[in-house]
């Protein structure tokens, strides 16, 4: 009897219409860049060039900020909350209508499996717009004072791991609160943000309320430094976050930073074992580990270490790595050659430090950027792979003996974005949640998001919160 080999099940890309080149979306229209060089965005799964994108130079940044300022003063700021809500609802519905197209585009440009862009990203993107649309006419009840006011123009710089979801996290609360925005998507994943620009046009959003400018670090820097900006919101690496904090220090700009993480995923001996294994897998291999709150440090109680490891390896052997557009793919492509190089470098360091590296047998495509799901055992707190964010499908496994030790090890990191606790004991979950210095503590689950739930970090994971009422507060003066 032959084995059950799943036939390829690729999602058709015919639904997506990618233009050969894109301008900058400023003041409600796509315009040519005036002082930047165009650059290419590629599919990380095949290295195929998808489109040419404009780079916004300082003059373009200035145009975008001025358009946003004008829209803020003339239209969006004075507009009644209930009317802003209508636009946001309209955008949310358009996202739902075009969700299949957006999911395919996201998987093409980012390399993430269509299963995740379709089932996780897009539903959350629409949910964020719906959620904040509901707040737009109820700002005085958000807990930010009796008469909260928008800040003005928000400069928003987002990363490449969840291009459209990060856009939603940024734009939805900003617009609901009455701000206008200039958003810069990451240089490797600009396409869904540009598709979102089309959605703004489709929704008849007044010109200048949302401006999308593409480019790399230089563009982002010019945007953050621009004196016409009232608020800076950034999600990305700790290094860039630190630079931004220095830039805005001493200015009246408000700032929120969502930075890196090295989350502890803590497994106690009484954990629901099979669901724990799923949670570990979801914690680190979701989106190829390109998740700032990824559970990249697995802390296992020594009494169940062998069993957890054996089960984890067996489960990892069933992960399907390959074409992101295949509906059966669990792990897609690494987003860029640079990121792949970094993952390789840190993994090599892990080996050099004496940790044991293991990956299931899996054939990787020859084109594109790929890294197999990997687990390191024999890791201790002193190893670099236990301290530095790898931002890839690489898990470090450490052990502990008592709940106290688990807390100490989990907190012994410069980061503090998230943590996971796996145990059947309810009282221990509550005790751990109080002890762990992390913005989010998941109990018997991991990487679960909801627009109503605030998200953000401690220490080097940044400051400020996104999502929920708290996310709204970050865009209000009071």
């Amino acid at each position: 009897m032959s084995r059950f080999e799943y036939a390829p099940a690729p999602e058709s890309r015919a639904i997506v219409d990618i233009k050969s080149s894109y301008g900058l979306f400023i003041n409600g229209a796509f315009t040519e860049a005036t002082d930047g060089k165009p650059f290419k965005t590629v599919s990380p799964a095949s290295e195929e060039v998808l489109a040419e994108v404009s780079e916004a130079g300082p003059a373009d940044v200035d145009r975008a900020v001025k358009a946003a300022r004008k829209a803020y003063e003339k239209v969006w700021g004075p507009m009644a909350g209930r009317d802003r809500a209508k636009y946001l609802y309209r955008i949310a519905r358009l996202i739902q209508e075009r969700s299949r197209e957006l999911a395919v585009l996201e998987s093409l440009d980012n390399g993430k499996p269509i299963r995740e862009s379709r089932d996780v990203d897009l539903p959350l993107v629409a949910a964020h717009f719906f959620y904040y649309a509901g707040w737009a006419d109820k700002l005085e009840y958000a807990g930010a004072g009796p008469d909260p006011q928008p800040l003005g123009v928000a400069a928003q710089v987002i990363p490449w791991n969840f291009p459209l979801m990060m856009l939603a996290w940024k734009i939805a609360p900003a617009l609901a609160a009455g701000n206008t925005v200039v958003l810069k998507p990451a240089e490797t994943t600009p396409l869904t943000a540009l598709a979102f620009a089309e959605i703004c046009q489709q929704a008849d959003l007044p010109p200048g309320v949302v401006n999308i400018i593409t480019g790399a670090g230089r563009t982002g820097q010019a945007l953050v430094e621009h004196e016409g900006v009232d608020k800076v919101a950034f999600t990305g690496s700790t290094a860039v976050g630190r630079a931004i904090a220095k830039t805005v220090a001493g200015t009246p700009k408000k700032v929120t930073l969502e930075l890196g993480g090295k989350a502890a995923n803590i497994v106690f001996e009484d954990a629901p074992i099979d669901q724990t294994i799923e949670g570990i897998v979801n914690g680190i291999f979701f989106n190829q580990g390109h998740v700032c709150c990824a559970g990249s440090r697995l802390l296992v109680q020594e009494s169940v270490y062998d069993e957890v490891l054996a089960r984890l390896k067996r489960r990892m052997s069933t992960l399907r790595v390959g074409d992101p557009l295949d509906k059966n793919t669990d792990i897609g492509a690494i987003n860029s050659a640079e990121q792949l190089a970094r993952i390789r470098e840190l993994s090599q360091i892990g080996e050099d430090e004496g940790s044991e590296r293991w990956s299931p047998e899996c054939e990787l495509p020859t084109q594109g950027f790929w890294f197999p799901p990997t687990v390191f055992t024999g890791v201790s707190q002193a190893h670099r792979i236990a301290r530095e964010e790898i931002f890839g499908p690489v898990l470090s496994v450490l052990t502990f003996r008592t709940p106290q030790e688990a807390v100490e090890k989990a907190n012994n990191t410069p980061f503090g974005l998230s943590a996971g606790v796996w145990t059947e004991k309810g009282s221990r979950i509550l005790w751990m949640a109080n002890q762990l210095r992390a913005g989010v503590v998941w109990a018997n689950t991991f990487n679960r998001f909801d627009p109503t739930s605030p998200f953000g970090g401690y220490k080097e994971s940044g400051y400020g919160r996104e999502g929920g009422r708290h996310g709204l507060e970050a865009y209000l003066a009071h």
Partner: protein
Amino acid sequence: MTTTDTGVDSLADVTSSEDRLRRFLLGLPGVDQVGAEARAAALSTRSIKTTAKAYALDLAIQMIDLTTLEGSDTPGKVRALCAKAKRPDPADPTAPQVAAVCVYPDLVATAKFELRGTGINVASVATAFPSGRSSLAIKVQDTKDAVASGADEVDMVIDRGAFLSGRYGLVFDEIAAIREAAGEAHLKVILETGELVTYDNVRRASWLAMLAGADFIKTSTGKVSPAATLPVTLVMLEAVRDYHESTGLHIGVKPAGGIRTAKDAIKYLVTVNETAGPDWLDPELFRFGASSLLNDLLMQRTKLATGHYPGPDYFTLD
């Protein structure tokens, strides 16, 4: 408890007294309901097409226990069912045979006669099916009757009342007694998971049945709602996988009741493949207790071969 390093010897040990058995079952790792259901839902999004679909459809047909369990069953009804089992699709002789025909004990002889020489097994529900509420002596006699009439497989129900009140030793002894009465016949133990309700109970009952000598663990009688569900089957597949790791023994799994479409059946096969592993993709180790499923599998099979859906009248009723 650590299932991976529990050998056969120590498992024999846990059944040496009711107290040990109880402690063992209560010490099994818990099942998180939300997580188990999320996993089952994720497995059901696998997309099975073309060659994989053709393979899955034929495999599913070969895993069917074609069943009639009505008070109104007659020899004539059973003969018709056996004819269908032998040749599911009269229009297409390449359609495979089903695994077994499942009937009440008094109709085993009829089915046995009709299926002689075909390799199709006769399964019989015994042990005061479906409630199981009679004395052990009657259950044993019911089983012996079925086997004496030629049943190759016996589907027994566990005493859910005893299980839910924590009398695990009683349930164990009963399964062991039926195991003995069934002799050479394969023993399928029906847990009636719809009445056990929690996944923790499902996992405990699975282990209890395996320890007591089950060859198969089966979700439902089909007479209680909910019958088979994907998360329950997932938990049972995890149990047989872990039991195999402890003992080297392969125990089968049979979801029964409520699986009506080829699409559903394929979700179960994917779950088998990715939970217990490809070894279990075999009628010896996985069965569907379903009758209406067969026609949908045949219809999808014809669709795959011809590109068109035939109408329901192109397939036989039974």
